[in-house]
C-alpha cells in the first residue's frame, strides 16, 4: 500500500504511509481506495464463483453440501455487486468526474471518504457471516432475500441485512456527491448538454440509485421487523404477503442492473471515439437514450416476477415496460456503430475491451429481450438462462467496460505506461473465458436447468463442464491484470498527460485538477 501510494500520488503527498490513506479526502485518493478495494473484492467474489463452478463441474455433491453452496452463491452476488462492480464505478467517478468537468474535487470530499469507509466494514461483516456456521452461517436465501426463506436464516442473515443497509447508505452518499459535484462544480462553459458521456451516464445512474436504493433499504428494514419485532409485513398469517418483498426488491434490483450498466455505457462512449479518432456520433441522442433507459428501468421490475401469479394486466404492463428498454439500448448501439464508421481505428487494450463490450451488450440485451417477453420467460425464468444473461451484462458488460476504463485512464492516473502486450493477453483470455463460461448457460437454461442448484441431471453435464473451464480461465486471466497494474505503478515508463493520440476531454489537458473555486478551465464542448 505504501509503495503504491508513493507511486500513484507523488505529486500531492501530504503525509506518507498508512495514515495518508486513512485520512485521505482528495478525490484521487478516494478513487484509488475504491478501485483497489473493488479489485480485492473481485478476487474474493471470484474465488467464491470458482468454488461454485468447481462443484458444478460434474453431477453429484463432491466439494460441499447444499447449505454451503447456497451461502456462497448468496455472498458471491452481494460481494460482486455491492463490493466489486459498484465500488469500481464509484472509484472511476471519484477519479474522473472532477477531472472531466474541471472541478477541484468532489463537492463533499469528506462524504466521499465516508462513502468509501463504510465499504470495508460492511463487506467484512458480510464475509464474517461465513464463520458463524454454528448459528446458521452466512445468508443462504440468495441475494434477493426472498421471505419466508430468508426468515429461516440465523444471525448471519441479520448481519448481512445490516451490511447491505450500510452498503445502501454508502451508495446513496456516493450518488448524492456525484449529483452535487456535477450540478455545482462544472467548469464555466460546460453546460449539461456538453457533459462528457461518462459524467452524464453517472449523473443519470446516481439519480436512479437515489430513487431505487430506498426500496431495497425498506425491504430489508421490514424484514428485520418481521424477524425480530413481531411485524408481519411479509407473512400471510398476519395479513402480509411475501410477494411485497419481491416487488420492493425488484424495484431496486431492476434499477440496479441499469445503475451498473449505464456508467459502463459511459466509459465505452469515452473509449470508442478516442480510438476511432472521431467524435461520438449523436452525443445528444445518446444522452437522451441513457435518460430514457433510466426512466424505463423504474417500470420493468415485474418482469422478474413472471411466475408469481401477477394478474394478466400487470404482467402485460411489466412486459411492455421491460421490452421498451430495447429502444434506447438500440439507439446507443447504433450510435456506437456510427462512431466507428469511417473512423481511423486502432486496437489498444481499452479499445478491445470497449469493442467486446458493444458485442456482449448487444448479445446480453437481446437475451434480456427474450426474458422480458413474459410467455418466453415462463420457460427461462429461474433457469440458467437468467444466470447467463445477468453475467453477460455484468461481467462481459460492466466488468469489461471497467477494465477497459482502467487501462484507458491508468496512464493518466499514474503518469506511467502499462504493458500493452500483457494487456492484450489479459483481454483475449478474458473474452474467451467469459464466453466459454456464460454461453453454455444459455443452452442449459433453454433445456430447463434450474438456477441455484448445487447438483444436476446427467444430460446437463457437458455444458456445465465447459462453463466451469471458462470460469477458471476468466478468473485466472484477472491475475494478469493485477500484475499489469502493479508493474505499471511500480515502474512503468513515463507517460505524457495526453497519452492517447485521439483522446479529447479536460482530463487529458492538465496534470492536476485546479485548486480553488473559479480556477477551473473554460470549455465549449465535451471534447475540447
Amino acid at each position, binding site marked *: 500500500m505504501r509503495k503504491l501510494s508513493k507511486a500513484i500520488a507523488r505529486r500531492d503527498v501530504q503525509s506518507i504511509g498508512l495514515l495518508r490513506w486513512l485520512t485521505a479526502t482528495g478525490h484521487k485518493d478516494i478513487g484509488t481506495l475504491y478501485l483497489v478495494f473493488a479489485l480485492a473484492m473481485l478476487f474474493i467474489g471470484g474465488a467464491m464463483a470458482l468454488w461454485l463452478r468447481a462443484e458444478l463441474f460434474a453431477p453429484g455433491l463432491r466439494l460441499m453440501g447444499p447449505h454451503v453452496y447456497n451461502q456462497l452463491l448468496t455472498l458471491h452476488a452481494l460481494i460482486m455487486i455491492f463490493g466489486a462492480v459498484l465500488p469500481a464505478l464509484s472509484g472511476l467517478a471519484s477519479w474522473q468526474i472532477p477531472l472531466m468537468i474541471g472541478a477541484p474535487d468532489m463537492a463533499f470530499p469528506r462524504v466521499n471518504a465516508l462513502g468509501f469507509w463504510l465499504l470495508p466494514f460492511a463487506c467484512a461483516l458480510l464475509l464474517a457471516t461465513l464463520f458463524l456456521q454454528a448459528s446458521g452461517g452466512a445468508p443462504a436465501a440468495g441475494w434477493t432475500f426472498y421471505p419466508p426463506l430468508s426468515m429461516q436464516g440465523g444471525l448471519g442473515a441479520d448481519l448481512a441485512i445490516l451490511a447491505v443497509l450500510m452498503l445502501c447508505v454508502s451508495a446513496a452518499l456516493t450518488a448524492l456527491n456525484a449529483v452535487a459535484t456535477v450540478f455545482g462544480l462544472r467548469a464555466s462553459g460546460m453546460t449539461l448538454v456538453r457533459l462528457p458521456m461518462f459524467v452524464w451516464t453517472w449523473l443519470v445512474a446516481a439519480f436512479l440509485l437515489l430513487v431505487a436504493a430506498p426500496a431495497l433499504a425498506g425491504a430489508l428494514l421490514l424484514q428485520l421487523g418481521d424477524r425480530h419485532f413481531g411485524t408481519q409485513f411479509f407473512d400471510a398469517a398476519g395479513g402480509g404477503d411475501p410477494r411485497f418483498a419481491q416487488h420492493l426488491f425488484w424495484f431496486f434490483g431492476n434499477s440496479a442492473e441499469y445503475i451498473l450498466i449505464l456508467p459502463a455505457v459511459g466509459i465505452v462512449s469515452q473509449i470508442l471515439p478516442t480510438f476511432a*479518432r472521431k467524435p461520438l456520433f449523436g452525443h445528444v441522442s445518446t444522452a437522451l437514450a441513457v435518460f430514457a433507459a433510466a426512466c424505463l428501468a423504474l417500470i420493468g421490475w415485474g418482469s422478474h416476477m413472471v411466475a408469481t*401469479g401477477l394478474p394478466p394486466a400487470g404482467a402485460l404492463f411489466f*412486459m411492455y415496460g421491460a421490452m421498451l428498454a430495447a429502444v434506447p439500448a438500440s439507439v446507443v448501439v447504433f450510435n456506437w456503430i456510427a462512431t*466507428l464508421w469511417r473512423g481511423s481505428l486502432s486496437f489498444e487494450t481499452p479499445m478491445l475491451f470497449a469493442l467486446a463490450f458493444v458485442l456482449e451488450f448487444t448479445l446480453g440485451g437481446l437475451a434480456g429481450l427474450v426474458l422480458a417477453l413474459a410467455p418466453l420467460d415462463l420457460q427461462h425464468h429461474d433457469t440458467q438462462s437468467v444466470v447467463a444473461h445477468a453475467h453477460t451484462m455484468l461481467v462481459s458488460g460492466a466488468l469489461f467496460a471497467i477494465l477497459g476504463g482502467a487501462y484507458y485512464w491508468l496512464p493518466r492516473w499514474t503518469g506511467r505506461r502499462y504493458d500493452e502486450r500483457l494487456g492484450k493477453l489479459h483481454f483475449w483470455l478474458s473474452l474467451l473465458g467469459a464466453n466459454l463460461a456464460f*454461453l453454455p448457460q444459455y443452452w442449459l437454461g433453454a433445456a430447463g436447468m434450474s438456477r441455484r442448484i448445487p447438483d*444436476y441431471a*446427467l*444430460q446437463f453435464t457437458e455444458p456445465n463442464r465447459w462453463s466451469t473451464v471458462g470460469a477458471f480461465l476468466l478468473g485466472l486471466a484477472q491475475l494478469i491484470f493485477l500484475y499489469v497494474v502493479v508493474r505499471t505503478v511500480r515502474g512503468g515508463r513515463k507517460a505524457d498527460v495526453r497519452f492517447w493520440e485521439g483522446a479529447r476531454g479536460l482530463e487529458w489537458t492538465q496534470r492536476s485538477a485546479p485548486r480553488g473555486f473559479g480556477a477551473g478551465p473554460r470549455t465549449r464542448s465535451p471534447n475540447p
Partner: protein
Amino acid sequence: MLSVTPTLRPAGGLSRLAWGVSGVFAPGLVSADYGLPFPKPVTPVAERILELHNLVLLGCLAAFALVCGFMLYSLVMHRKGRGFKPARFRGHATLEALWPAVPFLALAGAAVPATKVLLEAADAGKPHMTVAITGYQWRWKYDYPVQDLSFFSSLATPREQIEGGAPKDERYLLEADNPLVLPVGLKVRFVITAHDVIHAWSVPQLGVKQDAVPGFLGEFWASIDEPGTYRGQCAELCGVGHGYMPIVVQAVTQEEFDLWVSGQKSNATVAARKGPGTNAAGAPRL
C-alpha cells in the same frame, strides 16, 4: 451425456431452422423427455411458446448479425493501420430520428403474439378437472379433490448416488417416488400454494412455471396432448433441498387414469393412517 428416450423425434421446419442457424444451439430440436436444448412441447400453450421463441430467436440473430456485420466492416476497412483518415461527422439528424423506430417496430411485431400467448396461458377457466399442488421443504403434495386422492411426491434418487460414488442412473435427480398422474386431452387446472417457503412448480414441456406462495393460491393450467412422462424441478430457491425436489408428470389415457384412481382408492385409507411423508401411493403400473 444426452439422455434421449426412444421417442426421439425431429421438430417442425421453422424451429429446426431457428435452432440450426444459431451456432450456440447447434444440435437442433429433439424430443428428449427432459433434454437439450429445448424440450419438446406437449401442450398447446407450450407449442405456442416455442413458436414465438423461434420467431424471436430468428429476429435476435438477425439483429446480432447486423451489428456484427457493420462493426466488422468498420474494423477491417477503417483501420488506422490502412492509413484510413477519420471522417469528421458527429451526428445525422435524420438517422438519429429514425434509430428508435427500428427497434420499436420489431418490438411491436413480437409484442402482439406475445400478448396473445400470455392471455391464453393465463386463462385457466372452464377446466375439466382440478389438481391442488402444495410445496413443502422438500417435496410436493398433490391433491385430487374430486377423486379424493392425496399423496406426497419425493425424490427417488438414492442418497449414495448423490453423495457417494454409486453410479448415477439415467434419471438422476429427475425421478420421484409418486408421479403426478394426469389424463391426456383434458384441461387440467392447477391451484398451487406452499406449506413453508416459496417454491416453484415447473415442467418445461408443459410450458408451465408457477410460484407456490405460502398463504396464497396461484392458478395455472395445462392440457397435455400425448401420453408420456414429463419432468421438471423446483425453480425457486427454497433451501438446502432445492435441487432435490423433482416434478414428474405421467400423462396417461382416460381409461388408464380411471384405473389408476380406483387402484389408489383401495389403499388410500391405509396411507392416510400412516400420515404425511409415507409413499403409500405407488407409481402406476402401466
